[in-house]
């Protein structure tokens, strides 16, 4: 079992409480043991390094000193915590004089022997997508997710280094393992505005708008993040940004751990997903509908396949099936066409050809019962002929 010194940071039981909840669920599900770092303190975040260099290294160093005593690597889900702890490790390891200064300030021993890891690194590289997908019971079918990494998980490279700074893939792999579809987009590592959204909304809101717009234009229907500040900005401020830029995004925002919990069978409430600002519940129930539909289609196909394999041809039963198939064509040609032809446009042409042509309908109905492959070939031939006719 993987074991970590768990550093939840200040956000995971407050502004990003759903991140904290789903983090613990994810650990449970995947068999990761989290031992909370004893009496941990705040890493100082951006305000720390904006104000005082030494302080900004000493604050996380105190936590590293505690983890060293525990003899465990640190798991820090928050991107800012992760980044500050890595920066402190880096400083302690690379300069003896800076290390000495830090030890003096915190009045504890710290040698940089433990490593702080991000949840993306642990899930994608330690646990691995295969292990995750093995636990999935309710795949997030049809979810088009924009995986948003933001800044601090991938930059500076000397400090992070577990993924590519321009086109990272770790979250995409994890999201894929949950059954969702990660989309390609170009703002995955663009800054969301961070604290500027609060301190200078005139600047921060535009940065936020750029990220949301790119996600939407690239075909995403939700955003996934692993940073509590990104999460809060994208979610809580989305309405204000929509108003300022006179547009609608309506993009639910999830933490990556929520997707794991949900895909492994948790209710939205258990995963904390009912605590967002942009409504997620309606969206998630649509995903659930997709999943059920896909599952029953699969079961149907399977049943059909075994039927045609096992049953000896009984002329009467066959005739009955043909009749039923013919009825299907008369009643709902679109559905029947979709069973034969994947391409939507071509399927539409088939519907056109079939409508009102009982002879062709009967022919296809027969073939669909007796020889599925031939049925597809015949349908394709009908479509091609029709298209040629149209061109001429």
């Amino acid at each position, binding site marked *: 079992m993987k074991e970590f010194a768990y550093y939840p940071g*200040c*956000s995971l039981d*407050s*502004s*990003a*409480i759903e991140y904290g909840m789903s983090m613990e669920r994810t650990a449970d599900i995947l068999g990761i043991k989290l031992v909370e770092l004893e*009496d*941990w*303190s*705040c890493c*100082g*975040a*951006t*305000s*720390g*390094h*904006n*104000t*005082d*260099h*030494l*302080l900004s290294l*000493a*604050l996380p160093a*105190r936590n590293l000193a505690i983890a060293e005593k525990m003899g465990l690597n640190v798991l820090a889900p928050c991107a800012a915590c992760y980044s500050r702890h890595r920066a402190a490790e880096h400083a302690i390891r690379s300069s003896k004089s800076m290390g000495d*200064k830090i030890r*003096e*300030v*915190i*009045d504890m021993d710290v040698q940089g022997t433990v490593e702080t890891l991000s949840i993306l690194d642990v899930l994608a590289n330690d646990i691995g997508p295969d292990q995750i997908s093995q636990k999935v019971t309710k795949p997030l079918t049809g979810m088009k997710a924009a995986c948003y990494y933001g*800044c*601090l998980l991938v*930059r*500076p*490279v000397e400090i992070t280094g577990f993924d590519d*700074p321009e086109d990272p893939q770790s979250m995409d792999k994890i999201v894929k393992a949950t059954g969702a579809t990660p989309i390609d987009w170009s703002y995955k*590592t*663009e*800054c969301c*505005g*961070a*604290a*500027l959204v*609060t*301190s*200078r909304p*005139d*600047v*921060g809101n*535009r*940065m936020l708008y*750029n990220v949301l717009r790119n996600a939407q234009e690239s075909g995403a229907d939700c955003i996934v993040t692993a940073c509590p500040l990104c999460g809060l900005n994208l979610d*809580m401020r989305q309405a204000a940004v929509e108003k300022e830029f006179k547009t609608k995004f309506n993009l639910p925002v999830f933490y990556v751990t929520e997707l794991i919990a949900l895909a492994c069978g948790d209710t939205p409430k258990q995963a904390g997903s009912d*605590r*967002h*600002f942009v409504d997620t519940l309606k969206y998630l129930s649509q995903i659930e509908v997709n999943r059920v539909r896909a599952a029953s289609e699969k079961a149907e196909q399977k049943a059909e396949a075994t039927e045609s394999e096992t049953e000896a041809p009984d002329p009467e039963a066959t005739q009955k099936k043909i009749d039923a198939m013919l009825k299907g064509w008369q009643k709902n040609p679109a559905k029947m066409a979709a069973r034969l032809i994947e391409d939507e446009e071509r399927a539409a042409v088939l519907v056109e050809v079939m409508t009102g042509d009982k002879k062709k309908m009967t022919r296809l109905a027969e073939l669909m019962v007796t020889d599925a492959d031939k049925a597809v070939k015949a349908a394709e031939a009908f479509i091609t002929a029709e298209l040629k006719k149209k061109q001429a």
Partner: protein
Amino acid sequence: MGNAVTLIPAREQDRQLISKVEKEAGTSINLCYQCGKCTAGCPAAFAMDYPPRQIIRLLQLNLVDQALEAGSIWICASCETCSARCPRGVDIAALMDAMRREALQQGKITDKKVAAFNKAFLNGVKNFGKAYEAGLLMQYNLTTGQLLKDAGLGLPMMKRGKVSMLPHSIKGKDEIKKIFDRAEQLGGE
């Protein structure tokens, strides 16, 4: 004549200040060949008076006061994109960071809001050992005179169990105060 550039001989103290900032940032401004890639990728450049390339140029020309008074250094979001992309390996983000701290020390804060936010945040950490978000919003809004700015978000946050009105202290909060004090004493060395 009207377009002539007045070249002021660099003052020794400006040179010294620039090397101090460079040392703190662990980078060198002379590496920069002004290609502008940093500015091209900067997500906040649209709001800056001197985008990152120009900040570096000001420093190369020893115009350090002008750089320290630029609004840009307070608009920079520390996103690290510039440093990650610079073909010459200039750590611009670290320079921006060092400049902010220098401006703070000199009392040249052109953006009081960002500085007030940082101060309020660190005050919470110093007193409780953890960030105190409700207190942060209150103190920040008081010092910047925007008492009601985020009030509209307070209630929805509370409804979702996302803010506690009381701070959580850690056990070792006295240790943290000492860390703040010692860092301040040693930091100047």
